[in-house]
């Protein structure tokens, strides 16, 4: 085997370990909280040494940022595909809900602990929300032009939508103590939101 091939194999293994750490961190952060989960907890759950975690992520904050970015990439890629394909606003919002539902426990932590996060993690979340808002705006602007929804600034389209979702998620213990908030209320909230912004003419 050539040197180049064995190096590639090492790289593949390194990438796999990184991926495994990120997936494990997703679960641990969701279960134990973003600010309180320690790298040692993640190492234990991933069945790797503590040093392995640090070989990939120099700090807990770096690992948290990587997980937030991975979450953002997965949710926004799907929305990007829908938004550019002339899908309706309702379809794009439904896809947003579906994306969030896949990471509901993690996302709920992100919403609840947002103010407590290190600046870099909070900024990573801000950028993700802007990308999501942009995809929603592409569908919303088409519908504003077509006159099916009333004209609103983009930030209010997004903040009104996300404010509604976040209120339910932040109080998940009251709305759905034993299950998924988004599964239970997602459709109701989406229908309500669409009625709110529908053209009144």
């Amino acid at each position, binding site marked *: 085997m050539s040197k180049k091939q064995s190096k590639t194999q090492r790289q593949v293994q390194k990438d796999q370990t990184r991926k495994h750490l990120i997936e494990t961190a997703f679960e641990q952060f969701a279960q134990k909280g973003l600010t309180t989960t320690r790298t040692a907890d993640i190492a234990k759950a991933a069945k790797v040494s503590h040093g392995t975690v640090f070989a990939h992520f*120099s700090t807990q904050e770096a690992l948290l*940022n990587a997980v937030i970015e991975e979450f953002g*990439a997965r949710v926004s*890629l799907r929305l*990007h595909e829908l938004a*550019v394909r002339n899908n309706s606003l309702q379809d794009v919002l439904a896809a947003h809900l579906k994306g969030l539902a896949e990471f509901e426990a993690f996302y709920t932590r992100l919403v609840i602990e947002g103010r407590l996060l290190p*600046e*870099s993690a*909070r*900024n*990573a979340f*801000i*950028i993700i*929300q*802007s*990308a999501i*808002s*942009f995809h929603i*705006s592409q569908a919303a602007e088409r519908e504003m032009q077509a006159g099916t929804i009333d004209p609103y*600034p*983009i*930030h*209010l389209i*997004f*903040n009104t939508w996300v404010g509604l979702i976040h209120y339910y998620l932040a109080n998940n213990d009251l709305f759905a103590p034993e299950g998924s908030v988004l599964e239970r209320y997602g459709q109701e909230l989406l229908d309500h939101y669409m009625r709110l912004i529908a053209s009144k003419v």
Partner: protein
Amino acid sequence: MKICIACGMPMKEPADFAMGDTGKDYCVHCARPDGTMQSYEEKLDSLTAFIIRTQGLDKLAANAAARNMMARLPAWKVGD
């Protein structure tokens, strides 16, 4: 899939790339009209405006978030 080195946007279709050129490492939103890549200051201003437009944040808060995000992208990275 390529990721824009200047703003992090995933680039899948030729239309996502600067000048529709899939050989470029930066996206259509990070290119000037002549196809060259925007400067740090231009990108910081446009990213700040993008955050304000999409989320309505305060200008200083939006600017700080944009700065922080750019610091982690290959085009602007200054080392860890």
